[in-house]
């Protein structure tokens, strides 16, 4: 055994071939190396494949369904093929998402400012941070159920049950954690010297935060807000129990359309996608197309905003 080892060591120290320093493509470690590189490259490809295929397929199927009427008409009654539109769902998505942003942006940015600027490292702030992280992981359908139980079922909003406003509240709950977290993180990136400089010339804490610190962090905050809105706009589950659906234009007499059941593109996909009528399926594809394009655009906008902050 001892002599075997000595032999092996000797052959390592003195390779038998003259070209012992050259790269040997057939050496086991090099073969293994290449095989593994290939394998992880394959996995990486598989990871982006669904994205490429989904977007490609939606753009292909949905792009053909996009006509001017899609934006201006109502959907057809089942069995009919006229009119061919979903203007109500487009308006509804804008209304529900816009309402959600109106609630979530002030609360989220305010909460983020509290965490980063006021409470900083206290145990209260840490427990809020933990809570926000947990909320970010709560399934979206639970948010919908929560608002259903709290708002829809109790008819607390001026006696109405299903409404755009209830849908907005459910989406706002979903958006909050993203906005709080990005605001918190964005403000932490602002150098401490800037706060010192402002306080050093006798600015109050309020002025320091609103006029110096927050403007310096505006692009990470805006990025978070844009991504949160884009995510919320595509959510379906929380809206099924809250905004419900409607085949008609928003009922403007009912709280400016906010207190009536409202169509949204995501719920329309859910409702129409499996109908046995071709016009409805076409409209579901058209809605998918618009949502995907919107989310792509929002992500590009977010990247642009982030680049804006880096320069």
């Amino acid at each position, binding site marked *: 055994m001892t002599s075997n080892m000595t032999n092996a060591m000797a052959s390592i120290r003195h390779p038998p071939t003259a070209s012992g320093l050259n790269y040997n493509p057939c050496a086991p470690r090099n073969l293994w190396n290449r095989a593994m590189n290939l394998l992880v490259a394959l996995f990486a490809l598989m990871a982006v494949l669904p994205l490429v295929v989904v977007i490609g397929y939606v753009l292909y199927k949905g792009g053909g369904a996009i006509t001017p009427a899609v934006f201006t008409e109502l959907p057809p009654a089942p069995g009919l093929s006229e009119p061919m539109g979903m203007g109500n769902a487009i308006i509804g998505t804008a209304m529900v998402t816009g309402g959600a942003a109106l609630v979530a942006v002030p609360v989220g940015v305010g909460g983020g400012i509290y965490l980063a600027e006021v409470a900083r490292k206290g145990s209260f702030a840490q427990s809020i941070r933990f809570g926000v992280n947990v909320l970010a992981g709560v399934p979206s359908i639970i948010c919908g159920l929560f608002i259903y139980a709290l708002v829809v079922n109790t008819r607390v909003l001026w006696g109405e049950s299903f409404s755009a406003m209830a849908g907005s509240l459910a989406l706002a709950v979903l958006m909050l954690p993203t906005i709080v977290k990005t605001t918190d993180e964005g403000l932490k990136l602002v*150098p401490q*010297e*800037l706060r*010192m*400089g*402002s*306080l*050093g*010339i*006798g*600015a*109050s804490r309020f*002025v320091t935060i609103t*006029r*110096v610190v927050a*403007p*310096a962090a505006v692009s990470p905050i805006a990025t978070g807000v844009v991504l949160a809105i884009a995510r919320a706009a595509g959510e379906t589950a929380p809206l099924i129990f809250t905004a419900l659906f409607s085949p008609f234009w928003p009922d403007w007499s009912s709280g400016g359309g906010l207190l009536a059941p409202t169509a949204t593109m995501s719920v329309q996909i859910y409702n129409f996608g499996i109908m046995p009528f071709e016009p409805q399926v076409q409209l579901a594809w058209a809605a998918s197309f618009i949502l995907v394009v919107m989310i792509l655009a929002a992500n590009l906008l977010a990247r642009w905003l982030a680049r804006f902050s880096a320069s």
Partner: protein
Amino acid sequence: MTPSIADAIISCDNVTVNYGAFAAVRNVFLDIPRHKVTAFIGPSGCGKSTVLRCFNRMNDLIESFSMKGKVLFNGKDLYDPRVDPVEVRRRIGMVFQKPNPFPKTIYENIAFGARIHGFRGDMDELVETSLRRAAVWDECKDKLQESGLSLSGGQQQRLCIARAIAVEPEVILMDEPCSALDPISTLKVEETLHALKKNFTIVIVTHNMQQAVRVSDMTAFYNAVDAEGSDGMMGYLAEYNETKEIFNNPKSEDTKEYVTGRFG
């Protein structure tokens, strides 16, 4: 050890500062004369900056900070619970080690402080006067609407000085204002200090002894000793006198060794 100062604007009466259990500096008695430049020199960790930040309550922002003793500003205790630290910092401005202009235009950098304090005069004039007094007007008069960050380090630091004087404080505290600057910029900042002396009281922390000689009327030498019963060094005020006395005729052996460059 402490010279008698007839017209003191800031007085330390037995000031001891702790950061948590760590004693940073102890038993400081010090009178800062009005309309003079006072330099704080000494090795690192001897409490120069700590004492300086006590003067405008900047230490309040450090959670573990606690202070014993009194800091009097025009005879009034700055740490009286009724005192508003924001008002203190308006009267006693500060320039920091690293230039920290706001990410706004040069004009807005100067106008910001005045505006939040309700300045109602001619803002253009105030901006120009402040920049002139800080000796940076000629370099930035043609680009007032450009970002303050577009200036060089030395210009940024003079912009920060201009920003500090725009709110008309009585005292300007400077925490190693030239440590991040090259010699030419340093010289310009020092010239600025000479010009500012007429209207302001200046307290400057510096590691550069030549700078202390060049700019200051009074010099306080801080030193650090191994603290008993605690880890780390504890600072104290070793000697305080007119600058020429400190450098030419120091009373204590430590001061002599420090100013002649034998330690620190």
